[in-house]
């Protein structure tokens, strides 16, 4: 089956990839646009001998995952905007207790109930810990169904490697679209790496205690320093990004997910038309962020145009990376709006024409 191409919905592809990564516990709660994932798991999980629970709420779901992860299983949950907001306390707990897990946020338009159109406006929440305390989760930003598969599998590995949650930040288009995909072989997940801390039968060993509370003076700060070191290691080792036609580009677009696909079309279209030479840097991890790669662009004095489906969130990370060394402009949609190829090309033109950075909100204009 390895090389057979399947036509799969993004949401279902995540589910199948998770199963092949050895995930045997899923708890979730329905919400559009990720329902196919929950539904897929309800069908497939029992077939694989795993547990599917439709929890009473997103809060219950993340706390079930907390328990299941503590018991040594590869676990996951998924939701969209409002549901992910409700999980913030639980995610903070997972980080504090150093429990691995994987989750997907198939983003919809916010704030509030908003709409169910594709969006990227949960970028800050994902990359900076929407919950309380100093913590980070590893954030993957796939842009094709194939990448949903590959990054899901990687997501479980990274979570286990660092005993920390990792997540996919997708959007409604990615979750809902179908594309041919090569499904990966199942990994044989070996939970023995967790026998040193996972809950279970305590016969003949020291007992295990899993907690995030550290009241004795100094213990929490020392623990957080330990987390910090782990995060520094992740920043050093786990950055991923793609470069496309960057070398000779006058303007390099920085975009991820669905916005990056549109940007890629724009790069090709602009080059076909013989207009401005565009290139694309596509972050595949949003945290850790490809700071150095972007700083390199800045060193080359290339113009930078951030294209995002949120109001200047990715933009901040890019500006932090560039640190004043290049002109960084912004093209921003939100609330379900998508940039078009034409808008991107036009915006790139404005970047080149202006000596100052420009910020373009097409709907605002």
């Amino acid at each position, binding site marked *: 089956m390895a090389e057979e*191409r399947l*036509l799969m919905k993004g949401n279902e592809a995540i589910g199948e990839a998770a199963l092949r990564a050895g995930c045997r516990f899923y708890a979730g709660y329905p919400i*559009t*646009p990720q329902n196919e994932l929950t539904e897929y798991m309800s069908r497939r999980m029992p077939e694989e001998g795993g547990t599917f629970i439709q929890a009473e709420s997103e809060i219950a779901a993340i706390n079930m995952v907390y328990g299941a992860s503590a018991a040594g299983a590869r676990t996951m949950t998924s939701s969209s905007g409002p549901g992910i907001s409700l999980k913030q306390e639980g995610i903070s707990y997972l980080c504090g207790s150093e429990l691995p897990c994987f989750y997907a946020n198939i983003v919809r338009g916010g704030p509030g109930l908003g709409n*169910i159109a594709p969006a990227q406006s949960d970028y800050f929440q994902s990359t900076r810990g929407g919950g309380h305390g100093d913590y980070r989760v590893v954030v993957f930003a796939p842009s094709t169904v194939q990448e949903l598969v590959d990054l899901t599998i990687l997501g479980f590995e990274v979570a286990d490697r660092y005993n920390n949650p990792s997540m996919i930040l997708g959007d*409604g*288009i990615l979750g*809902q*679209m*179908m*594309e*041919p995909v090569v499904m990966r072989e199942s990994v044989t997940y070996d939970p023995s790496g967790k026998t040193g801390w996972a809950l279970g039968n305590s016969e003949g060993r020291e007992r295990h205690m899993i907690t995030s509370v550290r009241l004795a003076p100094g213990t929490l700060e020392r623990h957080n320093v330990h987390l910090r070191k782990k995060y520094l290691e992740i920043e050093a080792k786990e950055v991923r990004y793609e470069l496309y036609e960057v070398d000779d580009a006058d303007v390099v677009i920085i975009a991820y997910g*669905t916005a990056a*696909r*549109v*940007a*890629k*079309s724009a790069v*090709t279209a602009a080059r076909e038309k013989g207009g401005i030479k565009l290139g694309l840097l596509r972050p595949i991890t949003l945290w850790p962020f490809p700071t150095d790669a972007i700083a390199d662009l800045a060193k080359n004095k290339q113009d930078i145009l951030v294209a995002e489906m949120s109001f200047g969130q990715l933009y901040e990370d890019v500006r932090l990376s560039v640190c004043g060394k290049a002109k960084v402009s912004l093209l921003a949609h939100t609330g379900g709006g*998508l940039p*078009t*190829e034409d808008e991107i090309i036009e915006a790139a033109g404005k970047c080149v024409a202006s000596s100052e950075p420009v910020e373009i909100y097409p709907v605002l204009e």
Partner: protein
Amino acid sequence: MTTRVIMAGFGGQGVVLMGTLLSYSAMVQGKHTTFFPSYGAEMRGGTANCSVIVSDTEIPSPVVNEPDCVIAMNIASLDKFESRIRPGGVIFVNSSLVKKKVARDDIEEIRVPANDIAEGLGASRAANMVMLGCVLKKTGAVAVDSAVKSLEKVLSERAMALLELNKKALQRGFEEVS
């Protein structure tokens, strides 16, 4: 070659199945393809539509802003998408339900009495397949044979009873236009 199609209709008209079948058939023929439903209004009673791209090369963006081809299964779909078709493109109109004519003169209008034809075959539910048959003939996006073969892969279990009917409808649609 790249073909960008938008298919639209009422919730019950099988628009998603049409799109899925087109996309699946494209994959089977070794082409690049994306399918993307408007998963609309988390609410009932609206129109459903989906965007399909079939291409010989990698497809960066799955979003179809200027379709080469639109299938309008009802009047709301005609109203919504007529203006977005690229000049020189084509619109397929389900003339069983849509009496209104296309206003633009820079696109081609193909009127197919899909419901009537389908009803003639035994069930108006197969109107979508009749329509898709026409589209395949006209655009050559994929071969009708691979669509016919792919049908059993994309029908839900419940719908498998209608496999033969659907095949017939596809063929019939293919023969309808020249």
